[in-house]
């Protein structure tokens, strides 16, 4: 479904990614794990076209994503839940969700809105509130629901557990699994919490200083001594 080939990204003089290759098959949950600064977010931002790689290719369903604008990427069925959630704080919960459907003009938007409110009842209670007034967990739910409003086939999640209480993390990951197994959404999950990520994903890549260090099935990675030592504590 998604094929990242030999991707190299620079920010000015800083090399964030160096020749990384990642593939995601339709129906999978694939995770990118690694320490802060390893290049995980940069990988997702390259897919969404909000950073421009220096070298390499990103092929999605046979098309070269690097020729597309960010809004075209969304139209092609890719939604990105950014690190730190980035809800539009001065807009209401409902307006955030409706903007998630900005690329659509079918008649089912209201139905989907209703559906997201069923999936995230906390958001329904707060639909007319400014998004900036929500708690961290609620904002994460809003960011996910907003991404789902574009009806993505591939969902990019950047550190959904960041800064949240364990009980909330648990329910968010439950929703991630459910989206994948019941709604058929393919997921590329970025996490610093390697244990959690590998327990959720089918396969994983370990990023270190902008390169892919290790890759394999989640079971293999959970059993790998290097991974255990560096990331599983």
């Amino acid at each position, binding site marked *: 479904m998604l094929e990242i080939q030999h991707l190299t990204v620079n920010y000015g003089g800083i090399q964030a990614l160096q020749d990384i290759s990642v593939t995601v098959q339709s129906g999978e949950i694939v995770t990118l794990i690694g320490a802060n600064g390893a290049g995980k977010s940069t990988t997702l931002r390259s897919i969404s076209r*909000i950073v421009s790689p220096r070298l390499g290719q990103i092929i999605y369903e046979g098309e070269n994503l690097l020729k597309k604008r960010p809004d075209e990427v969304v139209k092609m069925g890719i939604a990105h839940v950014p690190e730190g959630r980035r809800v539009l704080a001065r807009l209401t919960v409902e307006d955030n969700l409706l903007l998630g459907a*900005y690329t659509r003009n079918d008649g089912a938007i209201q139905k989907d809105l209703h559906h997201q409110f069923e999936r995230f009842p906390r958001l329904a209670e707060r639909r007319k509130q400014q998004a900036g007034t929500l708690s961290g967990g609620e904002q994460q739910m809003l960011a996910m629901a907003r991404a789902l409003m574009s009806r993505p086939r591939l969902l990019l999640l950047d550190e959904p557990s960041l800064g949240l209480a364990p009980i909330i993390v648990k329910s968010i990951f439950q929703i991630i699994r459910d989206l994948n197994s019941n709604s058929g959404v393919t997921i590329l999950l970025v996490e610093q919490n390697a244990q959690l990520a590998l327990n959720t994903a089918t396969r994983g890549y370990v990023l270190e200083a902008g390169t892919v260090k290790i890759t394999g099935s989640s079971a293999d990675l959970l059993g790998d001594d290097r991974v255990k030592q560096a990331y599983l504590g």
Partner: protein
Amino acid sequence: MNIALFFQQIANGLAIGSVYAIFALGYTLIFSILGIINFAHGAVFTLGAYFTYTFMGLAFGFNGLLAQQKLPFGLPFPIALVLGGLAAGAIGVLIERAFFRPLRMRGGDSLLTLVSSLGIAVAIVNIIQYLVGAEAYAYPMSALGGLPPSVNFGTPESPLIVRTVQIVIFAVSMIILAGLTYLINATRTGKALRAVAEDATTASLLGINTDRLIMFTFFLSGFVGGIAGTLVGLSVTVTGPYFGIAFGLKGLAVIVLGGLGSIPGAVIGGLVIGLAEALVPSQSSALKEAVAFAILFVILLVRPQGIMGRVQVQKV
């Protein structure tokens, strides 16, 4: 001060204040999206007034490349006003594509952008002078069609007279204001604009074409600027190529007073300055131009972020 005079001055204040408001919104729209002040806005205001004059099929004066030229047809004032606004909007888009966008793509800093926009203003003034000379142009009395020149809101014994022009200006400004408010608060495009204003990167992750919305913002800004230019031209005259420069500075006072980037702020700021100027006694009318800046100074001492401004957050 007698009551009739006071009434007239309030009417004057509301009329000019409402034009300040819509003009200042042109700055506000661009500021809230890009975090920059477009100093070419005053020049776009001037162009709007000339465009309307042109669309009315009126002839230019004896100087400049287009001396004595006119369109082969003349449109009624209301239609010319709208077309003048649309043409000014198109100029706004052109300015964005030709200047602001290339600078933004190169990561030019905001001081550079600001100086460039001043340069655009100067260039527009020069081009106008080159084309149609430096003389003043007035819309003909017939611009308002069959409307009487003034309306008496009092009785024949104690008249309260307001010039029809002031009523027209106020009404047109209010229509524009209502339209913009509706657009921004109640439409899909308006929500997308607010999303881009708050966080352009996130907006593009949601599938919003930020480039296109920025162009649309410049169009709106130019449109309200052009309409404002025509309305002021109708009230006084189009005083020449520098017509919009002083007005442009006044508009800056309005947005700073109201709070940078705040739409209600621009409206309140415009009305406050318009009313305050109108209430300056006629024997000290030489001080009129200073009033806006005096009010600005006093308010900013008390409220540095302006009347409706948020405490400034760093744009990323």
